């Protein structure tokens, strides 16, 4: 036990002595947290909207007015022809073009039926989908209003059936994207720092030559590895703490669940990441190699974590792969505990899998560390 204490002491001395490393460990992740949380949003806003009004009646103007009133659309241009609209879309000046046909008003009143043409720039498919929904919502509302007006005028005898839905958004009532993103981004930062630091630490001693000196001592493998990993566990938890404080103060993210549960889970999670890092450094000879391999895993873990795209919409094989993605579990747990107030029994599946993962990775790390070749 004493021997481990001396290793931990030495690691902390080296970390806090490295004046170039300290800002990398603490300042960089926090800047990333602040920038990414504000920028990484899937909200589709400020849609550049143009229209071609071939009808020019009160009805068509009312429809356009509805778009104008929406916070999502910036009504920009009144195109005189579809050709003009087409070239504007090609130039990227406009995202959505609505074409109102001739006799729009007349058909609506006489035949209770009319067509509208909507053209959407779908280079970004996800955004186009959202834009389509918004357009439909506005048109439907317009249509409903029209029906109501028709009834009042007494031209229709039947009561129209209008079903209005009022959505309730649980756990994130205002649909604030930051509430959704900040816990996830915090997860990424804790992961990146602990993975890179642990991945490069042992390799660094290999490069300098001090690892050989350590291997000539009677120190046990587990003593060395525990002593090496413990300081990074503390750094990871420290980073989480600072991140949570920023989330609370700067982004007003609710922390509904138990802080203890969050930290308890994070300890196990960081052990997984440190095990992976150490495993990498056992198989590499230079910090450069370790860095590239760590990045390889990091990119896959991030993009398949469910942070940016839901795991449920991935193909079946990819969903199976994500079972081995520790970041996925951490993102789930953080969102569940922070936003929903999930308790231990709710996160038990993630907890159990992460614990198993921690044992597996650290077992592999200890086994693959060779004092004697």
């Amino acid at each position: 036990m004493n021997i481990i204490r001396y290793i931990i002491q030495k690691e902390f001395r080296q970390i806090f002595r490295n004046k170039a490393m300290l800002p990398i460990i603490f300042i960089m992740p926090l800047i990333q947290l602040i920038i990414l949380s504000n920028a990484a949003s899937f909200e589709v806003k400020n849609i550049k909207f143009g229209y071609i009004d071939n009808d020019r009646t009160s009805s068509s103007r009312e429809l356009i007015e509805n778009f104008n009133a929406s916070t999502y659309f910036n009504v920009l241009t009144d195109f005189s022809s579809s050709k003009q609209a087409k070239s504007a879309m090609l130039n990227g000046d406009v995202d959505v073009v609505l074409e109102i046909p001739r006799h729009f008003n007349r058909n609506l009143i006489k035949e209770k039926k009319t067509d509208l043409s909507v053209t959407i720039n779908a280079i970004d498919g996800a955004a186009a989908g959202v834009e389509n929904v918004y357009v439909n919502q506005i048109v439907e509302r317009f249509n409903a209003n029209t029906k109501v007006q028709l009834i009042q005028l007494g031209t229709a005898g039947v009561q129209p059936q209008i079903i209005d839905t009022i959505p309730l958004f649980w756990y994130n009532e205002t649909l604030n994207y930051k509430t959704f993103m900040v816990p996830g981004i915090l997860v990424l930062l804790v992961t990146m720092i602990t993975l890179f630091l642990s991945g490069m630490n042992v390799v660094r001693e290999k490069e300098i030559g001090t690892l050989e000196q350590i291997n000539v001592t009677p120190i046990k493998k587990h003593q060395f590895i525990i002593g090496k990993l413990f300081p990074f566990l503390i750094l990871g938890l420290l980073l989480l703490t600072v991140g949570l404080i920023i989330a609370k103060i700067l982004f007003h993210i609710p922390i509904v669940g138990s802080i203890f549960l969050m930290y308890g889970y994070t300890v196990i999670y960081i052990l997984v990441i440190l095990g992976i890092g150490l495993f990498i450094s056992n198989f590499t000879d230079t910090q450069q190699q370790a860095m590239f391999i760590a990045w390889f895993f990091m990119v896959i873990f991030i993009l398949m974590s469910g942070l940016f795209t839901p795991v449920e919409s991935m193909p079946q094989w990819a969903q199976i792969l994500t079972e081995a993605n520790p970041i996925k579990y951490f993102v789930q747990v953080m969102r569940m505990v922070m936003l929903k107030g999930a308790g231990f029994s709710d996160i038990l599946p993630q907890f159990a899998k992460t614990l198993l993962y921690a044992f597996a990775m650290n077992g592999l790390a200890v086994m693959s560390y060779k004092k004697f070749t």
Partner: protein
Amino acid sequence: MNTKNAIQVENLTKTFGAFTAVNNISFHVGKGEVFGFLGANGAGKTTAMKMLIGILKPSSGNALVANFDIATQADSVKKSIGYMSQRFSLYNDLTIKENITFFGGIYGLNKADIKTKTHALIDDLGLHDEANKLVGALPLGWKQKVAFSVSLLHDPQIIFLDEPTGGVDPITRRQFWEMIYREADKGKTIFVTTHYMDEAEYCNRVSIMVEGKIEALDTPKNLKTTYNADSMDQVFLKLARNLA
């Protein structure tokens, strides 16, 4: 195989694929002896030494170091030996004191011992002003002296030195050898590799390795007589040239 010798090597061999780095060497080193382990670059010295200090498994043959088998009792071997390598083996980003604390600690010394040893070491080397300076800021010769002293912290019976004086000025080299002799006088066994042939003259006995084999092993005096040479330098050149 039990022996009164500090190091007893029999038919030790190490192969890497088709290449035989150490080819069936046998020798022994007596207790309290200063043993010079010479050879040209690539002759297999470092490989042989790595096997003796328990960080490289032999392909065949066996060896006892401090009466422990290097293949099966590596951890016991490690407790009994000190090692200072050609690559600088202290932490440059720690101070002299912190290095002593760390290495003392991982050899299992207690706090009081570490404190006493730290004072003694700093007194011996006269490094009072530098004790709290980073090792990286010290001149190479001083670093090597500190590294040597650190390798003695746990009071090992045998000390392995891998080119300890490489790149060090002549005065410091002389001081370094004085330190070596002091330890030998205390009964410690010294196993040292070097490229400086004048240093070979300081050894009780010297072995010369050529292409993985020990080609000569005797006292410097006898070697000079056998090879009809004025200096160890000539002995070395004759051996290395004839077989190259």
